[in-house]
C-alpha cells in the first residue's frame, strides 16, 4: 500500500514537473476588456427575455441593469482602446503568466469541493461530504500522519454534530 502510494506520488511529481514548465501568457487588460464586453453585450441581448416590465413603471426593471452594462461596455472599450494604442505605438502590454501546474492543482481542489458537495446533496447527509472533504484534502496534502487523519475526521464529524444537534440545522 505504502509503496503504491509512493509510486503514485512520484508519478504525480514527475507529471507536475512537466506541467510546471508549461506556461502561457495572456494580455490581461485586453482579455478582460474583450471578455466583459462580450458579457455585457450578452446581458443586454437577453434582457428582454429575462426582465419583464410593466407599462406603468416610471423607471422600469431594465433601466438599472442597462445602465450598469453601459458603464461596463464603456470601461471595457477604454481598456481595449488603451491596449490597442499600446500595440500601435509598440509599447509593452500588461501580461499575466498562467502556469498549467497551478491550474491543474486548482482543478483538483475544485474537484474535491464539488465531490464533497455532491455527496452531501445526493446522500442528504452532510457528514458524508464533510468526511470526504477531510480525507480529500489530507490526501491532497500527502499527509502521512495518522493522528492528523483522526483529528480532521473527528473535527468534521464534530462540526456536523454541532450544527445538527446543537444548532438544529437539519442536514
Amino acid at each position, binding site marked *: 500500500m505504502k509503496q503504491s502510494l509512493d509510486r503514485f506520488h512520484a508519478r504525480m511529481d514527475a507529471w507536475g514537473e512537466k506541467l510546471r514548465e508549461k506556461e502561457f501568457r495572456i494580455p490581461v487588460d485586453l482579455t478582460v476588456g474583450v471578455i466583459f464586453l462580450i458579457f455585457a453585450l450578452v446581458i443586454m441581448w437577453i434582457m428582454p427575455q*429575462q426582465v419583464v416590465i410593466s407599462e406603468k413603471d*416610471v423607471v422600469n*426593471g431594465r433601466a438599472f441593469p442597462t445602465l450598469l452594462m453601459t458603464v461596463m461596455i464603456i470601461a471595457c472599450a477604454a481598456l481595449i482602446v488603451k491596449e490597442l494604442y499600446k500595440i500601435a505605438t509598440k509599447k509593452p502590454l500588461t501580461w499575466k503568466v498562467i502556469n498549467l501546474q497551478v491550474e491543474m*492543482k486548482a482543478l483538483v481542489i475544485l474537484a474535491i469541493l464539488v465531490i*464533497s*458537495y455532491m455527496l452531501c446533496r445526493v446522500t442528504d447527509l452532510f457528514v458524508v461530504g464533510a468526511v470526504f472533504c477531510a480525507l480529500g484534502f489530507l490526501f491532497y496534502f500527502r499527509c502521512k500522519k495518522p493522528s492528523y487523519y483522526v483529528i480532521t475526521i473527528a473535527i468534521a464529524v464534530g462540526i456536523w454534530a454541532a450544527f445538527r444537534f446543537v444548532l438544529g440545522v437539519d*442536514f
Partner: protein
Amino acid sequence: MLEYIVPATGLLFTLENILWINIGVFVGSVFAAIPGLSVILCVILFLPVTYTMTAIPGMMFLLGIYCAGGYGGSVSAILINTPGTPHAAATMLDGHPLSQQGRTKAALKIALYASTFGGVFSALMLLFLGPQVAKIAAQLGTPEYFMVCVFGLTIIAGVSGKSMIRGIISACLGLLIACIGSDPMTSYDRFTFGVSRLYLGLDLAVCLIGLFALVEILAKAEKRLDALHLDTRKIKDDGKITKSEYKRMIRPVLLSSLIGVMVGIIPGTGASEASWFSYSQAKNMSKHPEEFGHGSVEGIAAAESANNAVTGATLIPLLTLGIPGDGTVALMLSALMINGLNPGLSLFTTDGDIMYAIMLGLILVNIFMCIQGKFLTTLFAKVVSIPQEILTPVIVIFCFAGAYSVNNNYFDVGVALIFGALAWILRKLDMPPVPILLGLVLGKMTEPHFRRALLISNGDPAIFFSSIYCLIFLALIIVAVATIIRGKLNDQKKERAAAAAAANVHEEE
C-alpha cells in the same frame, strides 16, 4: 433621564445579566469568526433561548451576540484572509497582511480595541442623544438614502487596486448580481433563467463565502506543498502595539466611530457600509495612504471601530421610534415584543427603567467583549499555527455548513461553489473582488431607492436635490471624488518622478 438611571442600574447589575452578557459575547464572537455563520443567523438560532427570560437578560444576551459579532468577523479576516461576516471585509484588507508580517496578535488586539471604542461611543450616543438623533434620522427619505448609496459607490475607486477601470467593471458585476431575483418594485423575476430558487436573490453571506473563503482554498494551488507549512517557531508575535501606532489610530477611530453612528441610525444601512465608508475616509485622510492594503493599523482600526459603532446606533431608531435599523435589530424588537414591550418614545415614560437598563447594558456588553477578547486573542492567534492539512478542510466544512444554514438548502452551497470558481477566474484576470462585494452590498439599496425616488417624483430627477440633506450628501460626494482624483494625480506624479529618477541613475551609470 436621571430618575431612571438609578433603578436601571439596579435592574442591570445582577449576576444573571452578567452571565448572559458573557455567554452572548462568547457565542457571538465564535459565530462571527466562522465564515458563513452571520450574526443574524446566530440571533435567529438563539432567539428561542430568550423567550423564557425577562426583557433585560434576554436583551443582554442578544446584545452580547450582536456586539461581539461586530468584532468576531475580524478574527477570520485577520487570520485566514476570509471575513467571518460581510462587514469585516474592509478589516481583511489590512488585518491579514499585518498577520502575515508575524503580528497576528497585534492585528487582533487593534481590531478588539477599536471595536470596543466604537461600541462604547455608540452606546453613549444612544444614552445621551438617542431621541434627538432619531428625529433627524426620521427626516431622511428615499432620495437621501439614494445619495448615501452614491456616496458609497465612490469607495470603489479606493478599493480597485492598481486599475480603476477594472474596479468599475468588478463593481458593475456586483451590482448586476444584486439585481438577480424578484424586482423589488414590481415583483417580476429578473435574471433567474428559470431557476425557481433564484427569485429570492443571492444571499450576501453565501456570495462572500465563495468570493473570499473558497477562493483562498483554491489559492492553495499557487504554493508548493512544502511552502504551505508555516514554521511557527520563527514567529515572535508578542502582540505589542507601539505608542506611535496608538497615536496614529486616534483620529481614524474617532472619525470612524462617528461615521458608524451616522450610518447606523439610518434604517436599512448597516455595518458593511459603515466600515467601507470609514476605511475609505481613513485612507483619504491618512499621512500614510500607501500603507493601506499592506497592514495599516489605521485601516484595521477605522473599519472595526465603524462596524461596532453601528451596533448602538441601530438601536436608536428601534428604541425611540420602533423602527429596526437592520435585520438583527428587528429580531431584538421581536424579543422585546414577546415580553410585552412595544418600543417607541412612549416606552421611555412607561418603562423608562427597562429602557435605560438596556442602554446602560450596551456599555457593559462592550466592556465584557473587550475583557473576553483579550483572553480569546491568545487562543484565536493559535489558528495560524494549525497545520494546513487540518485547517483547510475544516474551513471548507464550516463554509459549506454556513452556506447551508442561511436558508437550510444545498442550493446555497452550490452558489458559494460557483462564486468560488468565478472568483478564481477573476483572480487570474487580476480583477479585484472587493468592488464586487461593494456592488452586492450597495446594489440591494441603490436601485430600489433610485427607482422609488423617481416614482415619488413622477420621474423628476430634481428630487435628488430637493432637501438640505441631499445637498449635504452631494457635497460629500463631490469632496470624495475630488480627493480620489487628487490622490490618483499625486500617484501618477510620484510614478513619473520615480521613473525619471530611475532613468537618471541609468544614464549616470
